[in-house]
């Protein structure tokens, strides 16, 4: 009886899933394996072997890796500090930290464009201070900066979560047994936070890999990532078949990545 009532509540979510997740995937699946006449083909998927295509894939992987590494290097020490604070204070800090996420990602990225432009806010300030100007707009660096800014919270949250689950007495026990701080860090704290690190990496790497908004806005059309390429096929070239084929490839690539990271996560739990 109670179950029936509960089931009623799931209908909106099920409908949402159906219309906005499952059906689009089927549409992409259909277009991806057909040509413009509707005949079956794998050419769209294998078009990733074309130079322009795999170049944008490799560039996306390259920038996503850099972004993930930078996020990890910023987030881990930050989470270590937050862990040590009084929970009330760390809660407030995390709230402040997450605040920008409530703003649309497009707007946040546009804000960076205004800041970084050749005659933008940052350069205006630098000129006023008689310092050399910063010319990174429309470069890989600007794109990575935007990615780090947008995705950093996705690294901080899971890492902080797993760090705060570590019992203080375990850390005390390690130093009681003679471990210096770096030993405690590398033998106890980092190994125990691997689940958080792995989910942080997944949550940053995947959106960074597939983004087109950030590269379009901060790359000024010069930097074409795989996400941007797919967007172009759909929106500008109106080649839904090719766009879908590349999407299928990207989805498979992401699946493989998730499978690998889950393997690392499991291994940690088994050990």
């Amino acid at each position, binding site marked *: 009886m109670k179950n029936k009532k509960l089931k009623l509540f799931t209908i909106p979510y099920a409908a949402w899933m159906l219309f906005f997740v499952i059906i689009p995937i089927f549409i992409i699946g259909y277009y991806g394996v057909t040509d413009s006449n509707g005949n079956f083909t794998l050419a769209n998927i294998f078009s990733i072997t074309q130079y322009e295509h795999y170049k944008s894939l490799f560039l996306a992987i390259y920038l996503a890796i850099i972004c993930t590494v930078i996020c990890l290097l910023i987030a881990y020490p930050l989470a270590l500090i937050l862990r040590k604070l009084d929970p009330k204070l760390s809660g407030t800090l995390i709230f402040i930290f997450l605040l920008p996420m409530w703003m649309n990602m497009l707007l946040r990225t546009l804000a960076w464009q205004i800041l970084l432009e050749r005659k933008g806010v940052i350069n205006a300030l630098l000129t006023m201070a008689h310092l050399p100007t910063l010319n990174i707009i429309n470069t890989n660096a600007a794109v990575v900066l935007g990615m780090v800014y947008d995705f950093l919270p996705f690294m901080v949250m899971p890492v902080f979560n797993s760090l705060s689950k570590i*019992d203080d007495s*375990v850390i*005390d*026990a390690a*130093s*009681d*047994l*003679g*471990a210096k701080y770096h030993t405690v860090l590398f033998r106890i704290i980092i190994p*125990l936070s691997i689940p958080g690190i792995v989910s942080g990496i997944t949550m940053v790497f995947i959106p960074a890999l597939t983004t087109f908004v950030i590269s379009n806005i901060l790359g000024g059309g010069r930097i074409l990532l795989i996400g941007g390429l797919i967007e172009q096929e759909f929106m500008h070239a109106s080649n839904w078949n090719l766009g879908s084929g590349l999407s299928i490839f990207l989805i498979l690539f992401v699946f493989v990545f998730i499978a690998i990271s889950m393997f690392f996560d499991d291994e940690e739990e088994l050990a």
Partner: protein
Amino acid sequence: MGKNLIELNHISKIFDGEQVIDDLNLSIKENSFVTLLGPSGCGKTTTLRIIAGFIRPDKGNVIFDGVDITDLPPNERQLNTVFQKYALFPHMNVRDNIAFGLNIKKKSKSYIDDKIKYALKLVNLDGYEKRNVESLSGGQQQRIAIARAIVNEPKVLLLDEPLAALDLKLRQEMQYELKKLKNELGITFIYVTHDQEEALTMSDTVVVMNQGYIQQLGTPEQIYNEPENAFVATFIGDSNIVHGVMLEDYLVEIFGSPFKCIDSGFGKRQPVDVVIRPEDVDIVDINSDKAILKGKMIGAIFKGEMYEMECRTNDGFEWLIHSTDLVEPGKEVGIFVEPENIQIMNKPASEDEEAVEVLAELNEE
């Protein structure tokens, strides 16, 4: 036994404006089994963590083997701790947990293997090297925590309520084993508990603490038989604490009737607290000349090894009495107490003053 291994001198610690430890002095002899006993929140763990180096005292210093170690971090102190919640490393198996301290000291593999074997044997868990620590029961985890500490051959083992999470049966078993272990290792144990029975059965010195002060320090027998104040008397075992007046040396008046006692040196008509253990209250025939107080039995509960009975005397006080012989409720009886079973204590003017007095006495010793 002989020299002092650890000395705490005038230790004070304030947490969030609250004085948790106040001018605490304590000397711990080599090879002793010292127990810090007291109610929750009295500062036992804080004291232990000051000795281990996790907390720096605001005032005072910690002397270890003649050397001031107040500023030494925990990883450089020659003592090891067994934590209340075991604190095993969840991502390591039993072997790696125990080997942790030895690996840091860069001991050879064969030395480590021998040590692990020896320690596991000592805690009755031979052959558990490869086990995942999270698959072990609470009692087994606690033994591993002990093994992990003792392989480092510390001069002192600190144990913070190590048995609190275990059930009664296992706890008694482990009490016995810990005591045996202590004798085999021949090292100093500093043990924290809020269980008075555990403290009395295991240790050779009991330190009773309350509100950051030491209330009494002594052998289990001293603590039980000669409590220094009402706090110790009520905290250690059951007791009848009544108001009394010293009539003269060796004679105290309780509820208007004179009792012979063995204490002297109090002022004439000085008010005192009198402690009488329930097993020391004798029920006698109401007409015998031993019947100093008279009253009526009002309740009895069978407790296994004895009856716990209550007797209301004519003055209205309800005496707690332990005896193997049942006296039926409703019966009119007399009450008598042997002089040596009457413990006379000064009345404290206030709790703080009481504690300071005790400390002053300790310092004189």
